[in-house]
């Protein structure tokens, strides 16, 4: 009786553990097969060539706003800046209100289409925060050269350009 109970318990333990391991492996394989491209929110400038993007194709483009690239267009309203992943650059234009966290040297995710001249015309710009949190006037702990150029310009400074 007691022995029978123990075997039933260990049977359940084995079956359940095997089931969970199988499920974990299956999920892992599915995620691996789908690949990071299809599960990612955006493409980066250096991915553009691989993706064979045609003018008019709608996509989300993400990367860092290149330092010193932000200015207003000739109309004085359009925001123009370069999105970079430190390998390739894409010039982006956007008419609208930028989020508070929009900074040169910080991440953005833009959504829109390429025009025939190769300019990415965005209708949405979202700011992407990085993992650093620090008081004002200090530099974050893992400030990498590309992600955190010296002297990140504030929105107010950029507005003056």
């Amino acid at each position: 009786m007691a022995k029978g109970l123990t075997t039933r318990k260990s049977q359940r333990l084995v079956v359940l553990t095997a089931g969970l391991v199988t499920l974990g492996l299956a999920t892992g394989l599915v995620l691996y097969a789908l690949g990071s491209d299809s599960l990612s929110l955006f493409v980066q400038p250096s991915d553009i060539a691989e993706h064979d993007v045609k003018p008019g194709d709608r996509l989300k483009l993400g990367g860092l706003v290149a330092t010193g690239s932000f200015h207003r267009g000739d109309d004085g309203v359009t925001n123009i800046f370069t999105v970079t992943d430190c390998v390739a650059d894409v010039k982006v234009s956007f008419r609208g209100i930028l989020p508070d966290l929009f900074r040169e040297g910080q991440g953005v995710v833009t959504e829109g289409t390429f025009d025939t001249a190769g300019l990415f015309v965005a209708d949405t710009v979202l700011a992407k925060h990085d993992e650093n949190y620090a008081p004002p006037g200090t530099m974050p702990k893992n400030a990498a050269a590309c992600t955190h150029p010296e002297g990140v310009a504030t929105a107010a400074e950029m507005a003056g350009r």
Partner: protein
Amino acid sequence: MHKYANPARFGALADRILPWARWVMILALIPGLWLALVASPPDYQQGESVRIMYLHVPAAWMSMFTYMVMAGAAFTALVWRHPLAQLAGRAAAPIGATFTALALVTGSLWGKPMWGTFWVWDGRLTSVLVLFFLYLGYMALDRAIEDEEKAGRAASILALVGVVNIPIIKFSVDWWNTLHQPASVMRMGGSTIDGSMLTPLFIMALAFQAYFVWIFLIRMKLEIDRRKAAVMRQSLRGI
């Protein structure tokens, strides 16, 4: 009476831990809220909006911790049929659902001013939404089936299947590019949060953890009483 032996001993233990959990929570909340709202600096990029972090991050941690408690209880209930294990899962689920909802709502209220949107379907946000639905599914299954034992087993299986979502939540920001930022605290190479912000974060996390223990123990006693009442009702009906 043998049937109650374990739950009764658990009840006595819970009664001894309960006041401690409540005091730890209160004593952590006082300095925690003071530091979070007043004494900690604004962020160099996010300004005062960073104060939402002291709620958002503990709620998000607890949403995953509570799920692991629930899944651990589900595993124990399925393998060893321990009478308290099923009750532990049932007691944890509504707390976890609350933490998850709070992580989503505070994240949304933080995302609007910083990112420029309340919501985006990236890997992190979507997998946390799935976590919320797993909690709701567990509670629905647990209630929907008449036979309490069958209901508990169905809910436990769902809880175990859902465990695959936990590493997906954790690593979504590393595997795929997302709007949500990568890990700041539990990452290789140490935290990227300044000490002046990390202290209030940990104190608030302790308060949330103590809140969980406190509510969880009350809910365990509640579930034990419910089961006792159900057994007594049956005996009154003469079964």
